[in-house]
């Protein structure tokens, strides 16, 4: 199943949740020309499909500045992979650095935006995306903690609720944190929310959804963003 073809299930009469591709496109609308952006693997990577016509520079933690799309059989370069270790292309103007410089760029505040997925986001900007348990299974952290503290902005893109319907936007995270007070905005299949001084502020909602319905699927109080 491709992500772009995935149809989000209807939640209530007349409500049309955004598909993953639509949520990624909605996020991409908010990226201005000229930003340097790091996209996490999976859902966040879809964002790169929706910035056409603007010069946005994609950085990959393994030392690529100016990453293009996924490689095809015609464009394959085996020595060029993204953070998910898939073969990718470069754009004209790209450059390559070593890992310490790449993370210097990340930690040093030179990345305008990082987009990551998450298991949970709390109303104070805490978020959890690296492990569901510190005792079971094999933990792996990769670059998430560095990106979370280093990028100028951290936006999360994720489904609004877990597969079994539980809210992922919460008062407090239950899972081990990736970073405290790091998230500034969240894009889900149901809404776009800022993390404001008093918690989640709704900027935009999927067609047909009411604040009450959104609140019912959210584990922390919502308010409308003052325009």
């Amino acid at each position: 199943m491709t992500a772009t073809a995935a149809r989000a299930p209807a939640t209530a009469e007349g409500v049309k949740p955004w598909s993953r591709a639509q949520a990624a496109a909605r996020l991409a609308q908010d990226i201005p020309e000229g930003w340097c952006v790091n996209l996490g693997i999976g859902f966040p990577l879809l964002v790169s499909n929706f910035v056409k016509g603007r010069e946005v520079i994609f950085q990959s933690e393994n030392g690529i500045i100016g990453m293009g799309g996924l490689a095809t059989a015609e464009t394959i370069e085996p020595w060029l992979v993204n953070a998910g270790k898939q073969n990718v292309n470069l754009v004209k103007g790209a450059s390559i650095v070593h890992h310490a410089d790449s993370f210097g760029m990340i930690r040093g505040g030179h990345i305008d935006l990082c987009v990551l997925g998450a298991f949970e986001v709390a109303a104070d900007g805490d978020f959890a995306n690296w492990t569901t348990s510190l005792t079971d299974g094999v933990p792996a952290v990769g670059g998430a903690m560095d990106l979370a503290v280093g990028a100028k902005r951290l936006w999360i893109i994720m489904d609004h609720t877990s597969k079994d319907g539980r809210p992922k936007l919460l008062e407090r995270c239950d899972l081990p944190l990736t970073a405290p007070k790091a998230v500034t905005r969240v894009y889900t299949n149901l809404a776009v929310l800022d993390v404001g001084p008093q918690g989640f502020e709704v900027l935009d909602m999927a067609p047909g959804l009411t604040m009450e319905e959104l609140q019912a699927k959210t584990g922390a109080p919502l308010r409308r963003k003052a325009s």
Partner: protein
Amino acid sequence: MIDKRVKSIAEAMQGIKDGSTVMFGGFGAVGHPAHLIDGLIEQGAKDLTLVGNNAGSGRVEPLVRLLAAGRVRKIICSFPRSAGSVVFDELHKAGKLELELVPQGTLAERIRAAGAGIPAFYTPTAYGTALAEGKEVREINGRHYLLEHAIRADVALVEAYQADRWGNLTYKLSGRNFNPIMAMAASLTIVQSQHMVELGDIGPEDVHTPGVFVQRVVHVPYGGPASNLATAG
């Protein structure tokens, strides 16, 4: 005449002692010196501490076979879990392989610091998380930082694209990754290079790692990493 070239992988791996800390370059398979790790299996050193980004996948690649052979006591790593990292999972669950999990940027900077003569540094990464446990916290200009220590190695295993007899190196595209900083952080840096070139063939401003950081170079023209074409979407 300075000549760091050696004729075989076996010669390149001579003298690595039991208990050594061994760094290996690579982000997945790209820039990963798999042939040198194969040579380390042959060479026989045991009770090793490995330092690298990943812990391998499947059961046939040399890194995984080194782990499976019980030759590694500990791995310092940012992303040991990947599709098919079955051997790491088994050994770790059985308590036979110690893991020090380090955020990727902190891992890179700890290696870079060692090579640059910096014993420790403060970083904001991982403050307020489970990975901060036991670490000194310092508040600087209103922000919290963790003290992280440099990681020096006895041996660094590096994959280059071009090398000359002085050990000057270039890397191919994202094959650079951890290799330049590891080359600086070890007492013995051993390089497998896709191409051997004449001294002077690499222009001075094109040298990625100057030969002063390199002790041994062996020519391994294996062609390049296996490709990983993603399916659309």
